[in-house]
């Protein structure tokens, strides 16, 4: 596309030089066109026609093959064949008039545009399917205000709800964040602001532990606390499992953010006579605040959606339990898992409705993170 009119440039330049040499003797006979910037991404009419023609021709061919000639069927097959035929036709039509490099460029563009389209469609489809399947339960107000105590899985949606799971998720994540966030940020301050051999060692170990699969974190809490020390399954155990999983993630994310704070700011602070605490508290952390907040909120969002440690540690209750130390405590991901694993159609639908609520919570956290990040950093 860009190779088309490259010969304009040297020609225009030469003409300008000629004119400057000649205008002393006589005015130029031919008016020189103004120096217009070359359109880099311009699309000629031929390009558009090629694209549209390839689209229609491939659609027609694929339709013909699918409905009239070949004994095949299926939506996926149709879309895949249509795309393949389209790329083929588009390349062929382009090759009639354009050099080989342009053909390669257009084929590559087809694939580069198709990939994000496919993923975006899948993501959109995920949200739509989840919301649509959960909608019958979502429209009942009691879904948000009551728990499942005394409600059978097959009962209609006008009774029972997920209040216990929402409250459980909030309590468990709050405890986990209360443990992991201060420790994680302090460890990050140690790694990037204090430094030294010890800090490098801590960084190596923490980076290694971000590889800890969440199920293994759950298994650790299960075997150490519940089996080893004989503690009951409770919200606290689940919160500890989440904290164990989230601590390296938060420490790592904070460390990455703190490390990009310009060193000149720290040096300026020291040069003004500030101590180390003052520098960290009044210069480094405020500068890093938007990035830090984003990283931490995204870490929290990941904790909210994590299911596997909860399966092992919290136990699933059907009633509202606000005491994390005794009795099992349900949570949204666990509720979804149990609902879908039950195989009871109505209960499954409740699971999808709970998944919609979970998606909404994650979305709210995400939007909140963006808002915090947008605020201007303190200078």
């Amino acid at each position, binding site marked *: 596309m860009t190779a088309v009119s490259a010969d304009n440039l040297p020609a225009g330049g030469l003409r300008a030089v000629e004119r400057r040499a000649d205008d002393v003797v006589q005015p130029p006979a031919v008016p020189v066109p103004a120096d217009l910037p070359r359109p880099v991404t311009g699309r000629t009419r031929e390009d558009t026609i090629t694209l549209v023609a390839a689209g229609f021709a491939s659609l027609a061919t694929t339709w013909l093959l699918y409905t009239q000639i070949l004994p095949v069927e299926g939506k996926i097959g149709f879309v895949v064949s249509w795309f393949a035929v389209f790329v083929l036709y588009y390349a062929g039509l382009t090759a009639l008039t354009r050099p080989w490099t342009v053909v390669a460029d257009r084929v590559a563009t087809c694939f580069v545009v198709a990939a994000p389209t496919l*993923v975006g469609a899948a993501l959109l489809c995920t949200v739509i399917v989840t919301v649509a399947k959960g909608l019958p339960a979502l429209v009942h107000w009691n879904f948000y205000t009551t728990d499942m105590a005394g409600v059978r899985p097959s009962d209609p949606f006008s009774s029972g709800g997920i209040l216990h799971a929402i409250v459980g998720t909030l309590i468990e994540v709050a405890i986990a964040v209360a443990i992991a966030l201060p420790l994680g940020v*302090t460890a990050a301050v140690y790694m990037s602001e204090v430094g030294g051999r010890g800090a490098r060692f801590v960084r190596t170990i923490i980076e290694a532990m971000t590889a800890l699969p969440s199920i293994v974190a759950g298994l650790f809490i299960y075997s150490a606390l519940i089996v080893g020390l004989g503690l009951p399954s409770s919200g606290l155990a689940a919160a500890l499992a989440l904290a164990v999983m989230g601590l390296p993630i938060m420490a790592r994310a904070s460390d990455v953010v703190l490390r990009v704070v310009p060193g000149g700011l720290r040096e300026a602070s020291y040069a003004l006579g500030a101590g180390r605490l003052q520098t960290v508290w009044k210069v480094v952390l405020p500068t890093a605040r938007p990035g830090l907040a984003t990283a931490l909120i995204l870490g929290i969002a990941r904790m909210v959606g994590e299911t596997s440690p909860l399966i092992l540690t919290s136990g699933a209750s059907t009633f509202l339990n606000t005491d994390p130390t005794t009795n099992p405590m349900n949570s949204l991901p666990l509720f979804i898992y149990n609902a*879908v694993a039950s195989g009871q159609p109505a209960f499954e639908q409740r699971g999808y409705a709970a998944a919609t609520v979970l998606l909404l919570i994650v979305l709210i956290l*995400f939007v909140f993170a963006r808002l915090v990040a947008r605020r201007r950093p303190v200078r």
Partner: protein
Amino acid sequence: MSGEGGVATSVADPVEVEDVPRRLTARHSLQDRLFVHGVRVTGLFVLVIVSSIGLFLGLQARPTFSHYGWSFFTESRWLPSQDIVGISAVLLGTLQVAAIALIIAFPLSLLTALFVTDWAPARMKNSLVRAIDLMAAVPGIVFGLWVLLFIQPHATHVAHFLSKYLGWIPIFKVHTDVDYPIWNQAPGYPAYQGSAFIAAIAVSMMIFPMATSVMREVFSEAPAGEKEAAIALGATRWSMVRTVVIPFGRSGIVGGTMLALGRALGETISVVLIISQTFQLKVNPLESGTSTISSMIAIGYKEATPAQLSALLTAGFLLFVITLVTNTIAAQIVARGRSGAGTEL
């Protein structure tokens, strides 16, 4: 000070000036010392917590290794009640699911990252990056539900098609009568459902955002001068990407893929929802039934006796070691690539 004579002598005779460097005292205030020590203690506390997990898992794994020896790695069956425990089948299943997820996610991430850096219009770029971040925050269980409800019916068709026409290749083979029409089978196409292939679709949705954002970051650091030079020499957009962006971002491609692999190996919940668990040493990812280490832990912990729990912990420890090695290599590759930023024009 007293007169010009004194000044003159001091200039003429520099020996008399005592040029002793001022003594710099690096003595911190009490507040700072408390701060540094407090932070150091907290950092070491975090170190103790975090490394105790690794140590705990390692110590728990020891009796299993000493009891079963090498057969722990070669035995495919998992029958703790009969004292037959081996993870070769589970390990193979884990690697299969992760590998297929990578095969699906890798081209998608690479192309999407290129789209964001070099194809998308400038005003779309930020919202695309945000959408990828948002996708990373979507809980795994939601993708599991989506695949279970919406994708599995289609994916079984694809699996049937592949096994029917490409069944002569061992990895596409399904041990069933492929000519038997799929809509005529028992409810839920049992031969194709719950396979490693379908679980891998959910896992690929999980790892896609991670791989994409690593690749995108490295691609966006490609030197603008070289890109413009390629365009100025008459290169098309694809030639420019092929000759400048992709060679520059090779470390990001490899590193991002390996980070995604580490995540894929540990992904639990979407796999648990989809697969039907079997302990069988086989390389037919389209066929129903597989198992991964993480799904085995999630399913098997409840009925576990102490000995079985120890075996599960050993499996978990092994999974951790594998992801640890993968992540470390990936981090090394990405970090080494970053130093290439010095080629900026």
